[in-house]
């Protein structure tokens, strides 16, 4: 294919602004799929993606489009994940493109993620086509959104394409804009091969399938090739382009997008962002911008029944085949037994993994309080990274503790600015700037500790802004703070799974709220249960669960022994679902208590 006739682009949008529906419509209009093959949101292949309406994995699809002038164009749509947890993947996908469709909902307008996506697209030097979607909705405020886009991008109204992806309105105009305005790829087919891996998936029959964009040179079938980050050599067993299925090709040359199968066993060896080059005539430098994806949020995952430990291990192994950003290693908890400390890109990523464990593997798990990674400087001068509060070194050995700080952007209608500022303050946010993207909407920037948003920040944000606030962030730095380890003791025994690292100013409130919550959740037992919160040796709160004084069935219902036995069987099964900590029985909900705390 002549480079002049190739367009590589992606769609960037805030969640729910209609990205997947637009993708469907493009596939239909270019006759890549017949109506018969259409299924809503074709590119969201996981059930979970379709249900939650978010794209978790990137996808790529090639459309061969005959333009009204009779010319045939190769349009490569590179779909990007739609959530901040996966922003690195988004960034890599954008690298593979020359242009982007910036999709904005006509009723919702510009949101925080729209802004950060625009910045990201600009960073990658992409040509941006602004698109207003859902213009058919009764609540559509096209003029307002036009103004917002004008302020954001400096574009005039004529440059904005107005569509309804759902109704198929304006799709032809959009295709024309893609062809006319997005620049064709450049690249030197004669230079040494440089191809970017922008995503990879695991196929149980073929191993790793890497999605690549060739920048220079030609990737040919059976050629010996090498990955820059690992210096491993492979043979390009199969290459091709992506339609709904994989279509084998003999080669992919500069400017083209496709897939590569090269006998790579582990997703980790075909990392997103890595560069593929030829073994015989390698490029000297890789494509820029490669970075290892690091988990941001950590939590312990424990099987409810200890018999499920091996099942959990194999389930995590399988999930990781498809998701190299999930990390896990075995750990033990005195309270919960054997489990795994898992690292996630963010909270959504964590939720997705929990849901998949439940749905696809049917394993009951207890998840400990999610936490961030702390960088601890010891008095000895040594530095350790702590991913589990239980492993925090003794206070006496600590010089200081640094926590991850985010660069957070919150976009909110101006009347809620006060509310948002109050929450940000509560969450130890450090205010930086306010910008008005239009007279009614403010973009607030804060430095915000990641640990403060791990629990319910997003929900709070939504509730104080009647759902209008939107939020985006990226990691900025680690910064020292006055943090302490708060332990929870049950009858004097520390319950490691509920230990937390909290700011000293919040420790009392946290300790009291947590002990009260547990008091409500721990059933009465044969003996008194004392719940204490402590910082080091200092007890900061205490609650007790009174023991049973009397628990005896008065009457054995004549000959109805069955009824009493069934009651006993139920109680017995109830006990099996409890975790025994020392002699105390603690229901699973207690371990989730922290997640529902309003502090």
């Amino acid at each position, binding site marked *: 294919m002549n480079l002049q006739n190739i367009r590589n682009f992606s769609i960037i949008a805030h969640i729910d602004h209609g990205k997947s529906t637009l993708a469907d419509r493009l596939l239909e209009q270019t006759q890549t799929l017949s109506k018969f093959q259409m299924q809503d949101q074709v590119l969201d292949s996981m059930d979970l993606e379709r249900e939650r309406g978010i794209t978790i994995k990137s996808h790529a699809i090639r459309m061969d489009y005959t333009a009204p002038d009779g010319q045939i164009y190769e349009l490569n749509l590179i779909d990007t994940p739609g959530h901040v947890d996966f922003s690195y993947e988004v960034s890599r996908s954008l690298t593979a493109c020359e242009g982007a469709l910036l999709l904005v909902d006509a009723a919702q307008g510009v949101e925080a993620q729209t802004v950060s996506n625009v910045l990201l697209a600009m960073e990658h030097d992409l040509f941006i086509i602004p698109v207003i979607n859902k213009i058919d909705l009764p609540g559509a405020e096209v003029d307002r959104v036009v103004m917002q886009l004008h302020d954001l991008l400096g574009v005039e109204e004529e440059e904005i394409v107005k569509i309804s992806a759902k109704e198929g309105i304006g799709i032809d105009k959009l295709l024309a804009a893609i062809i006319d305005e997005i620049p064709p790829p450049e690249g030197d087919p004669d230079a040494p091969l440089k191809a970017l891996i922008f995503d990879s998936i695991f196929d149980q029959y073929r191993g790793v399938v890497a999605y690549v964009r060739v920048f220079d040179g030609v990737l040919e079938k059976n050629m010996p090739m090498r990955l820059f980050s690992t210096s491993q050599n492979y043979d390009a067993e199969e290459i091709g382009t992506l339609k709904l299925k994989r279509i084998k090709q003999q080669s992919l040359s500069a400017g083209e997008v496709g897939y590569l199968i090269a006998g790579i066993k582990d997703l980790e060896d075909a990392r997103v962002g890595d560069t593929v080059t030829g073994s015989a005539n390698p490029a000297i430098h890789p494509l820029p911008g490669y970075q290892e994806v690091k988990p941001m949020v950590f939590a312990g995952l424990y099987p409810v029944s200890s018999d499920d430990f091996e099942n959990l291990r194999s389930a995590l192994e399988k999930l990781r085949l498809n998701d190299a950003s999930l990390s896990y290693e075995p750990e033990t908890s005195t309270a919960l037994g054997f489990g795994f400390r898992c690292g996630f890109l963010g909270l959504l990523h964590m939720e997705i993994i929990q849901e998949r464990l439940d749905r696809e593997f049917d394993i009951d798990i207890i998840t400990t309080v999610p936490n961030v990674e702390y960088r601890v400087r010891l008095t000895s001068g040594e530095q350790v990274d702590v991913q589990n509060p239980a492993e925090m070194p003794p206070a006496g050995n600590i010089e200081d503790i640094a926590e991850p700080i985010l660069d957070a952007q919150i976009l909110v209608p101006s009347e809620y600015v006060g509310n948002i500022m109050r929450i940000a303050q509560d969450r130890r946010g450090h205010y930086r700037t306010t910008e008005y993207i239009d007279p009614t909407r403010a973009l607030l920037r804060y430095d915000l500790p990641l640990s403060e948003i791990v629990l319910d920040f997003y929900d709070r944000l939504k509730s104080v802004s009647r759902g209008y606030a939107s939020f985006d962030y990226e990691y900025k730095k680690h910064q020292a703070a006055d943090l302490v380890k708060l332990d929870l003791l049950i009858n004097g025994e520390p319950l490691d799974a509920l230990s937390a690292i909290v700011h000293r100013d919040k420790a009392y409130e946290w300790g009291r709220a947590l002990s009260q919550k547990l008091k409500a959740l721990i059933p009465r037992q*044969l003996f008194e249960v004392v719940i204490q919160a402590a910082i080091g040796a200092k007890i900061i709160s205490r609650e007790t669960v009174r023991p049973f004084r*009397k628990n005896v069935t008065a*009457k054995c219902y004549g*000959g109805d022994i069955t009824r009493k*036995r069934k009651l006993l*069987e139920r109680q*017995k099964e109830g006990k099996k679902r409890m975790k025994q900590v020392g002699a105390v029985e603690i229901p699973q909900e207690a371990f989730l208590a922290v997640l529902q705390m309003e502090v």
Partner: protein
Amino acid sequence: MNFGLYIHIPFCHSRCPYCDFAFVVGKNHMAKRYMDAVIVEMQTRMQSLGTLPVFNTLYFGGGTPSAIPPGQLNRILTNAKSAVSPDAEITAEANPNDCEYFEKLYEYGINRLSLGVQAFTDRALKALGRFHKASDAIVAFQAARDVGFKNISIDLMYGAPGQTLEEWAKSLQRTIELCPEHISVYGLTIEPQTNFARRLQKGQLDVPPETDQAEMYMYAIDQLEAAGYTHYEISNFARSGFASRHNLNYWHDRPYLGVGLSAHSYLDNRRFWNVRGLKTYMQRVEATGYAVEREEQLTPTQHLLERIMLGLRQRRGLRADFLSHPKIHKQYIAMTNQHLLERTDNRVRLTRQGLLLADLVCTELVREL
């Protein structure tokens, strides 16, 4: 040979607000048709047993057996006569207001009367929704003695709404003064779907706190033991030789046949029970001779659970070898160390403290099973 026969008489004069047994009110005109059905069911059962059984106990429970004319009970006694051993314990539950029937009941061969007194203070009786007075109960007891009953049991209930320990002590004292052969002491239990349960939920029922209930129970044990009664089961006390043989059958894992609506039977490791509706029961028996709602074959684990559960409720305890089971032993040791269980010779029983927590101890013992 120990084999019990239970006959359920569902008729009652009125509804007690705490009761969740199978009962009907205002249907006494159906008593004859019902008893016809009971006799049919009993005969069908006995025929299917093969050899004629010999029942060593017969028990009329309810409901209120004394709520229907005694002649109806006599029909059963006459019909079952050949299957009931001559020295059988034959009990009828009776309401203190029905004392005019006592003479007939005794005459027809009933030799044990279980009086549903519940309390000897008018305040508690009213709180429990009972229609008799304390004085009626005393009169009834005397009447039973006068017509010849030498084995009388009194049912008492502690923890009535608004009850104090002092008030409870009064009921106990009156009971002891009457010198019954047997006393059952039940803590008021709020069963779901009863009038009391609804009132409790609305916050309109003033049930004594758990600590008071525990104290009432302990006080009863002390008083009754001091008065010469043997505490032989969690809720039951008797003078020597007067433990309820019929109830011991249930608790000793022995067979019994239950006839009438909602009655439970236990034969050949199989438990089955009848339907609860009066009409359904009669129609099904009239059509087929039976009215079983469900049955279950006990698995070995279930059987073991029952033996432990029933054994622990008895003051003589459980044979220690049950507790050497590998999945029980550890908990047994732990419960012993917590002074909830104690060993006497080759039996294990609840301690005094353990009695109050019998259900928890039992659940804990079998948690690994």
